[in-house]
């Protein structure tokens, strides 16, 4: 499919060190101001994000990971049903499933998981996370550029 409108969605809390990788990357993309790319971020995903996602051809979720191989991993996501224990969390796959069921839209979606290391209550990324952030940002900018020029 031709990707016309892309949403880059950062997930995480900047008040918990490297958990802020997603919002930080999104703020950098926002500063760049890439054509046809919208940005959003929040501490967690939630049900109203299904409506947001329904407006896009493609969605890239950017999240910190404490297990992925550094500097980052990038993989396509499929909608999936999952049981919730709390209102405080909804997975990207569940959001996509809601988008499909409620709004009959199925944007292609990817997860950009950036490796983080420090999670305590403090602001600012760890030095190693900063390095991973730079690599992920360069990759994403290039990927978006490719997405505009050809089908993905």
């Amino acid at each position, binding site marked *: 499919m031709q990707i016309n409108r892309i949403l880059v969605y950062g997930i995480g809390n900047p008040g918990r060190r490297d958990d802020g990788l997603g919002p930080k990357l999104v703020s950098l993309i926002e500063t760049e101001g890439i054509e046809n790319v919208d940005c959003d971020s929040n501490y967690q995903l939630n*049900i109203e994000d299904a409506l947001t996602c329904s407006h896009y051809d493609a969605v890239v979720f950017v999240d910190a990971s404490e297990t992925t191989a550094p500097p980052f991993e990038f993989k396509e996501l499929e909608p999936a*049903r999952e049981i919730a224990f709390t209102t405080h969390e909804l997975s990207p796959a569940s959001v996509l499933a809601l988008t499909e069921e409620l709004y009959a839209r199925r944007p292609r979606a990817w997860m950009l998981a950036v490796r983080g290391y420090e999670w305590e209550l403090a602001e600012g990324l760890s030095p190693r996370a900063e390095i991973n952030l730079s690599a992920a940002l360069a990759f994403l900018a290039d990927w978006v550029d490719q997405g505009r020029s050809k089908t993905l």
Partner: protein
Amino acid sequence: MGRKITIEPVTRVEGHGKVTIHLDDRGKVTQSRFHIVEFRGFERFVQGRPYWEAPVLVQRLCGICPVSHHLAAAKAMDVIVGAGPEKLTPTAEKMRRLMHYGQMLQSHALHFFHLASPDLLFGMDADPAIRNIVGVALEHRDLAVQGVMLRKFGQEIILATAGKKIHGTGAIPGGINKNLTIEERDSFLKGPAPLNADTMIEWAQGALDLFKAFHKDHKDLVDGFAPFPSNHLSLVRKDGALDFYHGVLRAVDSEGRKVLDDVDYQDYLKYIGEEVRSWSYMKFPYLRSLGKADGWYRVGPLARLNTCDFIPSPHAQKEFELYKAYTDGKPNNMSLHTHWARLIELLHSAEVIRELLNDKDLQGDKLVRRGKRRPEGVGLVEAPRGTLFHHYRVDDNDQIAMANLIVSTTNNNEPMNRAVNWVAENMISEKPEITEGMLNRVEVAIRAYDPCLSCATHAVGKMPLVVEMYDSRKNLVDRKCK
């Protein structure tokens, strides 16, 4: 051979909790506990920061109810700048109320549609592949869409009053930094359906009617699931009305006798103690007058409707009267009736939002008041999950020297343990096999309180739900992950 079952219901950075149920050789429950296994640290996070930053900083605690922390901290800072707790301008107080009731609307809607409705619509033993929010979307599309839009409406109210979707800056020490424009007001009052106040009231009533119909057909389940007597605590307005934003502290016992009789929350330390237990990092608050053993209490929707005398909005008051009649006016101690109470509060929130939107004070231009600077202040609000305490001391350099937070989930620590214990003893004890449905009932008991482990523990957690079984020698004999 004795066994230990461990359930680790955790979310991404929302703290880390688990349930352990100890069984003896015959499978009889000998002990059950809801543990918090991380440590507190947020109070230290704000120490040394300028006091005026607190209302923004504390929103780092939680992405679901940041407005509660924003407003509780702002109310404490009102006291510190000599403008609180009842000296705000009408515009400032009503803007904050609109923000808060917008949050209550979106949070209560989220809880019902996301967490409670799958269990109610599909049953606690239903296939987990169906028993989830996506299953609700598939089978009850209109209901799911209403859930999304109710939450979105609440979020838009927060955006208009706090200035941002997350990390709002609307409430500042002594007041508010913006009013509501006519255009913003009209978009909420007269906006195209469904995003207007009238539709929100209609949908809130619909959700409540859905619960009542379910209750009518499943009385044994709803009334009989984890009932236990407790004390109940909340803010109430000075005339006894339900009030989420401001009031006096009231506590009643399981029979409705007043334990705290409308006291000033600035003196909360006189009335509330916090017990530390070796097996949990989350404290156990209690009413000092009743002592540690008997002074524990519930907070949240169930508690609020047990402490207040009436609800100051017409539709919710009518529902409140039906609700109270069900227990002959006595306090309601049935855990799943928390959902009923929450939906009455959802309806009340929608009504209050419409009433506030029609109030011309929201377009006023007197936004901030200041008075004599004080070194200490306490701010309380009724957050969606219950009473939230923020207490700060500020030094002569305007830096926060001390912070003490008692969040709703901490207030509900003992009740959640009691609820888990009820399920363990009544649903799991002496059963030959532990089924997914049984374990789901443990979660249902905790879900009624929707604990925010981020607020309660301030720490990083893990994702999956893990169930581990140990024999009497502490050997792992079974482990399941969701």
